[in-house]
Every structure is written in structure tokens, then in C-alpha cells.
């Protein structure tokens, strides 16, 4: 236990401490101790040192960041805007440059004005920005150089604009002239078109005539000549028109001419043609000539003079040439401007690059500064921890934890750190010292306790009356008491001492003869002893050399030792032997008693028979003599002689006495036999529903004469609806008669009351008399056999003295109790209580069993086969009600059947056996015997088992199983037609085919029984044993024939088998067969 605790302490608590202490190197204890300053103060100091360096590092960082910010500001505020301005100026200059071509291609005056305005605005803005910049910028020289370039471009653009304006005017004039040319051309065309059309139509007409046959050759040639003439007149007009077309064509090419030379080439032929045409106009009709002259004048205007096409085209060419010059000039000015702008942009980039370089320089300086400060800060922190925290705190804590671990490990003598100073660690060390001292004290106390406990244990072991020995896991003797040594004959320790192994002890005791081994050799004994010791089981016995017996009980204990107890059982062994002798004698005595009892039973049976025979003669002859006396002798004696008459009277009285005593003797014999049968278990008991009311009624009827004889009142106090009990009706009636007769016997005056009551689950009947009563000391004896209360020498015993004993046996058999309440002189009350039958009318009523020999069974079955119905059917009617019997008889006789009758179940079964009816109509509820019982008895009788039975009942059976076992069930009141239909159907079917389960281990017997059953018209279901029963199906068996006894099984086992609990059962008993 102690070890376990130490391990757990070691593994948990100090672990964090060890982990914390390990990285720190061992340092000499507390070299830099600041006396008077606590651990908290020192830690605060160290924290402040480390924090101070951290603050310095932070300040340096902030300074560096500030430097970098300044550098960046410089870049942002100075260089970037300047560069941006230059970029803007350059952009604007670019746009102005790109404006010239746009100006060149404008198509209208409006467009020109807007482009020109845009360009002017651009130039003005550029000019303004440049002047602004010149005022503030440091790069003014560059800007000053830019100025002339911009001015040149500006002037050039103004000139260009003027040219464009001129070009637009020229374009307008050119368009006007071209339109006029086109109008003139159209007008000329219209002048010649009618003539030409006329000619065309005449030519077409002539060709048609030429191709057709309408005109003769002469006609055709005439027409051709006319046509030729026509054409000849029109030819000059056509020629003129041709010339005018060529004139127009030449003029139309002028606006697109590319040079002055080309214009000249085009216009010179025009002039000639104009002159030529003017001369040839006289060939034309006058009207046309007039019109043509007007048009020719227009042509002439367009060909010559200021507004001629050629003149306009020449102006245009001149303007275009001027524009090209201006564009070339413009291009050179733009080139200069772009050069200057590029210089500006480069200067801006250079400024930005310089600023960046400055910023980079500042940043790297700051970084170096910061790293230096951080490094210094880290170095100083490490130094603080190393020199200060570790030396003055951790080293001492480590030392302290080592001491704690040593103490926790059980070493209470471990050195403790010396107290130095007044801080927390010192106080912990002091506390540890206190703890250690306490632990030492506790340990010493524990050791003392252990020693005391051990002594107590030894004392206890010594005080045990048995020998005690404890062997350790290696089977060595570790502890034993003096008794142990005494038992193995070694009180002085000469043979056995502590530390010896079991083998050595066994060997020593066997070799010296202390133990009688019984083994072949000493080694065999030693081995057996070791085996027993290592796997101890039940106590073992050992015979000692001096004749004593030792019983050794051994038990392994946890942790591997063995405890052995040695008891001296010599006395017990001796008593056991004596006891065995006694048991033997008892067994023999019992056997003798049983034999005697059997002999007594046999003797009683024989004696009763031997007594009955003479009694038969005595009683019989006495009865005959009595009859003869009454019938013949007395009437014949006519003598008036008083002596003769007295003699006759005396003879008559004597005969009555002989008869009465003979009957008493018979009753005595019957009682003796009954008691004997009950005692020996040979009594046969019925088991049926028994109505207690019926029992009381029958017994009171049987004893009515006794009451009348003694003049006693008989009082009945019986409630209605008394429940039924299960049992033997006749024997219960016998019990009741005994009680009543007993009451009458001991009562001279007064009355006898019979009172019945119903309890929760029992019914109670009391017989109360007002007779002599029984003293309390005698009450226990009244139920004893052959005892009567009172002094048998002075009081003549009455009755057999067995009635109450028999009554008690019968009530006991029914699971009830019989008792007596009485006081001397105050009468007696005999009461019995019986359990109420819990099972209602049902299958149980059919649950009967009977024993039968195989031969009787086979013989009865063989008998059945020959008794098939021939002729009219015999029907047995069983009912206690005469009117019902009469009614049924009439109906059945009317149907042609023969009828026999019985009034109760008992007679019904007898009659059925004697007469073998073809069918039985059986009432269920009858006083003389339950109908179901009768049905069961019939079912169990091989001869009658096949007779169909129609049950009549006022109630329907709840039990379906029961219903299934009966052929028909009809309720009262009887429906005549239904009943006759049932009966006709059953008679037609003949013997009812019963399903019979045949259980017998012997296959031959089984086959024999099955054959006999089949021959008798039944269905046999053979099985070799209860484990081999056929699987239950829709048609369960009606009854079972089971072999019991040595070859088969017991009745209880049969009932326990599935499906056989409620089945009517015929038991074939091999034992009874042998007997």
C-alpha cells in the first residue's frame, strides 16, 4: 500500500516542477541574493528591467517609422505633382498635334468652326498652364523652350484654318459648276431624243416588213429607199449630238484632275469642239437650234473664264498645295514640341526615382536601428533571467522540489535546503521541515501499531483450538501456532521450524512416522501433499502415526500464500463410524418393520375374508330364520301357553340382536380394511366434482333412523349455493355419516346441528352436538386409531372406534382439515374444511386415468369387433329426471329404436358395459354421478370407448378442448328434431372412431395395441416414448394408452408431457401384470 501511494505522488505532483526546473542550468545557490527582498519584489524588478528594454525598442521603432514617413512625404509632395503637370502638358500638346489632320478633313463650314474652336481652346489652356508653371516651377528653362514650339504650332494651325476655309468656298463653286454642266447636258439630250426615237421606230418597222411576206420586193425596196433618205437627213443631227456628248465628258473630268497639265489636256479639245459645234448648228431645225445655242453658251461659260471648271479646279489645287506645306511645317513643330515634352517627363521620372532612393535609405537605417535595439533588449532580458531569476529563485526551488520528491518517495532522512533569508521559498523549506518531522513521527507510530497488530494476530492464532499454519508463495512455513506443532507431535520444534518448505515438512513427518501416509513411498506422499497444497479443494483427512485423525483445510489467499488449518477429528471419525452402524441397524429395522407391515396388511385382508365367510352364514341364516319366524312359525304357533309365547318373543329378539351384532362386526371389518388401505396407500380414490350439499343430504338421510331411534333433533343450517369440492363423493358421505353417527352416539338429550359455511377458498361443515363433551386432555386422542375416550374398563366401548380416524384420513386426503372443539359436559363440535374446487366444469372433468392390464385391454377390444349393429339400435338414456327419460323414450321409440334407461352415471356405465348400446344420451348434471365423469369412464373402457355419446346440458361447456372430445353437445331444453338428426347421423356412422395415442417402448406391444385398436374401429397413433409424441395437429387425440412401470414411465411423468395433462389416460401397468 505504501509503495503504491509513493508511486502516485511521484508521478503527479512534482512533475510540473521538474519540467520547469530542467531547462535552467544548475547554478550555485543564491549568489545574487538581495536580502530582505521577497520573491515577488525580485520578480517585479526583473519584469521592470525586461519591460524597460522593451519600451526602448518601441521608441526606436517609432523613430524609424517617423523617418520613413518624412521621406515618403517628400516624394509625394514635391516630385509627383511636378511630374503630373509635365505629363498633362505633354498630353495637351499631343492633342493639339493630332488636331491638324482632323481640321484637314472637315466637310463643312460648321464643322470647321467647331474643330478650330476646340483647337484654339486647347492652345489657350496649354498656354495658361505653361505660364502658371513658369511662375512656380524650377524647370522653367524647359518650359521656356516649349513656348516657341507651341506658338509655331498655333500659327500654323491658324493658317491651315484659313486655307481650309478657302477650300470650302472652292468646293461650293465647283459643286455649282458641276450642277450646271449636268443640267446643260440633260437639256441637250432632250433636244436630240425625239429625232433619234423616230428614226429608231422607222428602222424597227422596216425590219419587221422585211422579215414578213406582206409586202413585195418593190414595196420593200421603196420603203428602204425612203428610210435611207430619212436617215440621211437625220445623220448630221446625230453627229452633233455625238460631239456634244464628248464635250460633256471632257468637261466632267476636269473637277477630278490632279494637276494643271491634266486640266490643260482636258480643256484645249473642249474649246475646239465648242467652236466646231457652234458652226454646225444650222443643220438643225430652228427651234432646236435656238435651244441648243442657249446650252452651248452655258458650256462655254463652264469651259472658259473665271467661273470655268478649270479655273476653280486650279484654285483648289493651289489651296491643297498650300495646305501640304502647312502640314509639313506643322509636323516639324509638333516634333519639336514632343521632344521637349519627353524631356519634361524624363525629368519628372528622375525626380521620383531620386525621392524613392531617399525613402529606401531612410527605411534601411530605421530597420537597422530597430534590430539593434530589439537585440539589446533581448540580450538584457536573457541576462536578467540568467543572472537573477535562475540563480536566486529557480535553483532554490529545484533544491526544494528534490527534497520533497525524496520525502514523498519515502526517504524521510533526505537533506533539506538550509534556510537563507526570509522569502517565500525559505518559508516553504521551513514548512517542508515541519511536514517531514510530522511524517517521521507518524511513521514511527505506524510501526508501533503494526507491531502491536502483529502481536495480536499471533495471540489470536495461538488461541485457535485448531492447528494453524501459513505458508508463503514459495510454500515455506512462515507462521504457525503451538497447536499445529502439538498436532504434528512436535511441540518443542525439533521436527518443524519456521522457514521450512512444505516438502521438507512432509518428508520429515513421514520419515519419522508421525504421519501414516498410506502411499507407496515417502516421495509419493510428499508429491501428493504438495499437489493438494497447491490446488486445495475439500478438506483432506490424514491418519497420524498414533492413530489420531487430522483434517486439513487449506485455502490460497490473495498474493500467493496458503493458510492451512489442522483439526483433530479423531472423535468425529469415531462417532461417524458409530452412526454408520446405527444407520445400518435402522435400515434393517425399517425393512423388518415394512415386512411386518406388509404381513399385517396381508393378514388383515385374509382375516377379513375369513371373517366374512362365517359372518355371511351367521347373518344370512339369521335373516332367513327371522323371515321364517315372521312368515311361517309365528303364525303357525297357536299355543297360548305363556312359556311358548315368551320363548317365541325371546327368539325373535335374540335373532334381532344376532343380526345387529353381525352387522356391527361387518362394519368393523370394513372399517379396519378401509384404514389399512388408507394407511398402506392401497385405497382407490375417485376424483370428481362433489356437491357438498349433496353429501350433507345423503348422509343425513342415511342417519335419519339413528336420530329417530334416540329421539334427538336434527338441525340443518346449510346456506344455498354451496360450492363443489373435488374428491371422492362416497368417502365424503362416509365421513359425514361417521361424524353424525358419532354425535348421536354420545348425545342422550338435545339436538345435533349440521352447519355449513363458505370461506374464501374453502367450504366448512360442522357437526355440533349437546352431548357429554370431551375433556381437553382427551381431545388429541379422539382421532387416533382404535382409541375411544374414557375408561375402557368401566365404560363399554360403543362403535368400532375407527370412525373418526377414518374421517380424519379421508379429509386429510382431500387436502382439508378436521378438528374438534369441545368441553366436558358442554357438547362437542367436529368441523372439517375442504378446499373449493377451483376448476370449473371443463376438460378436467374428463381427466381421468385407470390402470388396466394389457391382456384385459386386448380382450375387451377383441370383444368390440364382433358386436356391430344388426337390426334396430339400442339407445341408453341417462338422466336423473324421470320426465325427461319418458320424453326421450317416446321420441326414440317412435323413431324405431330400442331404449334402455339409467338414472345416474354409475349405473349408466354398468349398463353400458352389460348391454353395449349403440348410442348413449347422457345428461351432464346429475346427483348420482357427474355426466362428464360417466363419459370419461366410458371412454376409458375399451369396450365402450367407441360408443357415440350425445351430451345434454343446461349449460354449454366453456372448454373447447372438452367439447372437441365429445361427439355431440346439445343444450336443454331439448330440440327434438335436432337431437334426432344428431342421433341418426351418429348411428349411421356406427362406432365413433377415437384417436388413441399409444405410448409403449416395445415396438411389438405397440403394433399389437395399434392393430387391436384399428380392428375395433379406432385410429392408433403410436409413439415409443413421451419424448416421441406426434406433433400436435388440428385433431388432438381423444385418449392415450401409456405403458408405465419398469419398462415405461410413471403416471406423473405422463401427465407432465405436453398435451397429456387433461387427456383421459389408460395406464398399462407391467408391475400389476406381474403381480
Amino acid at each position, binding site marked *: 500500500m505504501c509503495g503504491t501511494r509513493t508511486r502516485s505522488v511521484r508521478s503527479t505532483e512534482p512533475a510540473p516542477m521538474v519540467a520547469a526546473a530542467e531547462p535552467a542550468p544548475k547554478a550555485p545557490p543564491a549568489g545574487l541574493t538581495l536580502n530582505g527582498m521577497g520573491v515577488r519584489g525580485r520578480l517585479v524588478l526583473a519584469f521592470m528591467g525586461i519591460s524597460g528594454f522593451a519600451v526602448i525598442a518601441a521608441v526606436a521603432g517609432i523613430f524609424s517609422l517617423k523617418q520613413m514617413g518624412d521621406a515618403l512625404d517628400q516624394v509625394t509632395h514635391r516630385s509627383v505633382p511636378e511630374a503630373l503637370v509635365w505629363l498633362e502638358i505633354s498630353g495637351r500638346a499631343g492633342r493639339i498635334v493630332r488636331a491638324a489632320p482632323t481640321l484637314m478633313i472637315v466637310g463643312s463650314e460648321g464643322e470647321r468652326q467647331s474643330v478650330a474652336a476646340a483647337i484654339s481652346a486647347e492652345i489657350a489652356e496649354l498656354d495658361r498652364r505653361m505660364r502658371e508653371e513658369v511662375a512656380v516651377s524650377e524647370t522653367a528653362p524647359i518650359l521656356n523652350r516649349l513656348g516657341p514650339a507651341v506658338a509655331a504650332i498655333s500659327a500654323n494651325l491658324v493658317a491651315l484654318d484659313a486655307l481650309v476655309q478657302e477650300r470650302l468656298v472652292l468646293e461650293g463653286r465647283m459643286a455649282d459648276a458641276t450642277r450646271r454642266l449636268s443640267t446643260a447636258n440633260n437639256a441637250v439630250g432632250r433636244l436630240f431624243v425625239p429625232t433619234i426615237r423616230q428614226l429608231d421606230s422607222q428602222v424597227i418597222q422596216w425590219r419587221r416588213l422585211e422579215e414578213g411576206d406582206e409586202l413585195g420586193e418593190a414595196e420593200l425596196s421603196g420603203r428602204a429607199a425612203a428610210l435611207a433618205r430619212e436617215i440621211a437627213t437625220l445623220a448630221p443631227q446625230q453627229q452633233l449630238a455625238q460631239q456634244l456628248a464628248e464635250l460633256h465628258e471632257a468637261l466632267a473630268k476636269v473637277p477630278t484632275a490632279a494637276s494643271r497639265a491634266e486640266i490643260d489636256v482636258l480643256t484645249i479639245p473642249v474649246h475646239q469642239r465648242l467652236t466646231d459645234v457652234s458652226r454646225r448648228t444650222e443643220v438643225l431645225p430652228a427651234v432646236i437650234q435656238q435651244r441648243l445655242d442657249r446650252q452651248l453658251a452655258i458650256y462655254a461659260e463652264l469651259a472658259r473664264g473665271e467661273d470655268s471648271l478649270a479655273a476653280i479646279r486650279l484654285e483648289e489645287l493651289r489651296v491643297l498645295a498650300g495646305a501640304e506645306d502647312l502640314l509639313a511645317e506643322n509636323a516639324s513643330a509638333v516634333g519639336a514640341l514632343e521632344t521637349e515634352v519627353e524631356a519634361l517627363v524624363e525629368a519628372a521620372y528622375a525626380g521620383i526615382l531620386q525621392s524613392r532612393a531617399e525613402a529606401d535609405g531612410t527605411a534601411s537605417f530605421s530597420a537597422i536601428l530597430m534590430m539593434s535595439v530589439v537585440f539589446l533588449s533581448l540580450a538584457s532580458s536573457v541576462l536578467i533571467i540568467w543572472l537573477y531569476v535562475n540563480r536566486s529563485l529557480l535553483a532554490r526551488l529545484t533544491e526544494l522540489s528534490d527534497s520533497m520528491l525524496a520525502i514523498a518517495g519515502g526517504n524521510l532522512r533526505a537533506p533539506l535546503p538550509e534556510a537563507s533569508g526570509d522569502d517565500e521559498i525559505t518559508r516553504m523549506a521551513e514548512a517542508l521541515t515541519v511536514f517531514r518531522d510530522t511524517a517521521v513521527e507518524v511513521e514511527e507510530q505506524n510501526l508501533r501499531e503494526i507491531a502491536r497488530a502483529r502481536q495480536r494476530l499471533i495471540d489470536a492464532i495461538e488461541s485457535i483450538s485448531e492447528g494453524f499454519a501459513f505458508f508463503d508463495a514459495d510454500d515455506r512455513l512462515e507462521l504457525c501456532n503451538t497447536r499445529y506443532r502439538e498436532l504434528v507431535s512436535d511441540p518443542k520444534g525439533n521436527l518443524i521450524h519456521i522457514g521450512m518448505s512444505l516438502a521438507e515438512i512432509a518428508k520429515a513427518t513421514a520419515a519419522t512416522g508421525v504421519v501414516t501416509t498410506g502411499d507407496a513411498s515417502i516421495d509419493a506422499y510428499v508429491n501428493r501433499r504438495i499437489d493438494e497444497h497447491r490446488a486445495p479443494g475439500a478438506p483432506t483427512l490424514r491418519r497420524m502415526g498414533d492413530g489420531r485423525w487430522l483434517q486439513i483445510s487449506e485455502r490460497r489467499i490473495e498474493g500467493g500464500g496458503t493458510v492451512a488449518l489442522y483439526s483433530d477429528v479423531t472423535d468425529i471419525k469415531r462417532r461417524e463410524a458409530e452412526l454408520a452402524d446405527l444407520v445400518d441397524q435402522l435400515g434393517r429395522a425399517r425393512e423388518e418393520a415394512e415386512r411386518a407391515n406388509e404381513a399385517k396388511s396381508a393378514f388383515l385382508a385374509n382375516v*377379513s375374508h375369513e371373517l366374512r365367510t*362365517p359372518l*355371511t352364514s351367521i347373518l*344370512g341364516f339369521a335373516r*332367513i330364520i327371522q*323371515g321364517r319366524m315372521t312368515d311361517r312359525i309365528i303364525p303357525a304357533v297357536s299355543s297360548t301357553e305363556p312359556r311358548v309365547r315368551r320363548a317365541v318373543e325371546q327368539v325373535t329378539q335374540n335373532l334381532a340382536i344376532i343380526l345387529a351384532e353381525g352387522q356391527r362386526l361387518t362394519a368393523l371389518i370394513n372399517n379396519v380394511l378401509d384404514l389399512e388401505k388408507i394407511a398402506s396407500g392401497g385405497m382407490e380414490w375417485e376424483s370428481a366434482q362433489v356437491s357438498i350439499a349433496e353429501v350433507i343430504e345423503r348422509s343425513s338421510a342415511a342417519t335419519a333412523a339413528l336420530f329417530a331411534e334416540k329421539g334427538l333433533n336434527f338441525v340443518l343450517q346449510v346456506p344455498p349455493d354451496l360450492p363443489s369440492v373435488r374428491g371422492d363423493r362416497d368417502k365424503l358421505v362416509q365421513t359425514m355419516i361417521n361424524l353424525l353417527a358419532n354425535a348421536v352416539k354420545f348425545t342422550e338429550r338435545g339436538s345435533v346441528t349440521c352447519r355449513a359455511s363458505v370461506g374464501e377458498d374453502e367450504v366448512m361443515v360442522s357437526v355440533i352436538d349437546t352431548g357429554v363433551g370431551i375433556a381437553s386432555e382427551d381431545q388429541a386422542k379422539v382421532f387416533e386409531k382404535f382409541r375411544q375416550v374414557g375408561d375402557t374398563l368401566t365404560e363399554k366401548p360403543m362403535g368400532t372406534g375407527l370412525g373418526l380416524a377414518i374421517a380424519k384420513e379421508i379429509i386429510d386426503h382431500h387436502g382439508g382439515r378436521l378438528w374438534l372443539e369441545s368441553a366436558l359436559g358442554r357438547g362437542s363440535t367436529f368441523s372439517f374444511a375442504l378446499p373449493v374446487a377451483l376448476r370449473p366444469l371443463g376438460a378436467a372433468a374428463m381427466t381421468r386415468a385407470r390402470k388396466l392390464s394389457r391382456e384385459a385391454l386386448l380382450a375387451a377390444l377383441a*370383444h368390440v369387433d364382433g358386436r356391430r349393429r344388426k337390426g334396430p339400435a339400442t339407445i341408453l338414456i341417462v338422466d336423473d329426471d324421470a320426465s325427461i327419460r319418458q320424453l326421450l323414450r317416446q321420441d326414440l321409440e317412435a323413431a324405431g329404436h330400442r331404449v334402455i334407461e339409467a338414472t345416474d352415471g354409475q349405473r349408466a356405465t354398468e349398463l353400458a358395459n352389460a348391454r353395449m348400446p349403440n348410442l348413449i344420451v347422457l345428461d351432464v348434471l346429475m346427483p348420482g354421478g357427474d355426466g362428464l365423469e360417466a363419459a370419461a369412464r366410458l371412454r376409458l373402457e375399451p369396450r365402450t370407448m367407441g360408443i357415440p355419446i350425445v351430451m345434454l346440458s343446461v349449460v354449454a361447456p366453456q372448454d373447447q378442448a372438452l367439447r372437441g372430445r365429445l361427439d355431440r353437445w346439445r343444450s336443454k331444453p331439448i330440440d327434438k328434431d335436432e337431437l334426432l338428426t344428431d342421433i341418426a347421423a351418429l348411428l349411421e356412422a356406427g362406432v365413433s372412431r377415437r384417436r388413441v395415442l399409444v405410448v409403449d417402448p416395445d415396438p411389438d406391444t405397440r403394433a399389437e395395441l395399434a392393430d387391436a385398436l384399428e380392428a375395433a374401429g379406432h385410429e392408433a397413433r403410436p409413439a415409443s416414448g413421451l419424448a416421441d409424441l406426434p406433433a400436435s395437429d388440428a385433431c388432438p387425440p381423444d385418449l392415450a394408452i401409456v405403458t408405465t412401470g419398469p419398462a415405461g414411465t410413471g403416471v406423473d411423468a405422463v401427465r407432465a408431457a405436453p398435451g397429456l395433462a387433461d387427456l383421459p389416460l389408460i395406464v398399462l401397468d407391467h408391475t400389476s401384470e406381474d403381480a
Partner: protein
Amino acid sequence: MSAPTILIVDDEAHIRTLIEQTLEDLEDEGVQLLSAADGAAGLAMIEEARPDLVFLDVMMPKLNGFDVCDAVKHRLSLTETHVVLLTAKGQEVDRQRGRDVGADAYMTKPFDPDALLAHAREVLGL
């Protein structure tokens, strides 16, 4: 049809006499009374005389009543012969055995002479 015949089988002479005297009245009415002193003789007489009614003791020398009855009912198949077992053995086992061998009635000794006479009258229909 000859006169009705009753056979009495009992080894005790007293009992035979007793039964004969009991049935004396029937003799006056024309019934023939026969008797035999043991089972074998009884059986021989049954076979020969074919009585209508037999009063048969059970415990007899040579052949007991059960065996006689069994022979009569089953071997000879004389089912019309009414056999009354008349015995001192009154236990249920014995009654059952009587039924098994086919006895028509079972009476125990000591018997009531009046009952015996009444039974005989009933069987013979007198």
C-alpha cells in the same frame, strides 16, 4: 323352453345351503336350483346345463370365480348367461376385475338374502 335354472357355485357348504334356502321360494315357482362345490365343477355344470343365472364365489379351489366367469363369457361366449360374482373380496380392484372378466353383477359377502332374491327375480323376469 325348459324351466329357468340357477346354479350356485361355492366351496362352502354353509353358503350353498344359505343361498339355496334364500332362493327356496323360487323353487316353488318352478325354478331349478343346481349347485357345485368348486370352480371346475361349476364350469362343467354351466357348460352342460346352461343355467340362466349363476351365483359364483370367487375364492374356490381348482378354478377361481374370475376364471370361471371369463371362461363362460369369453371362451364359451355364453353371453346370455347372467353371472353374479358373490364374494368376500369387496375391494374396487376386485370389482374392476369382475367387470373385466364380463361379470354381469357383483355382490359382496355378507349379502342381504332379500337383495339376492330380488336380483334373481329381476334377472329371471319372475
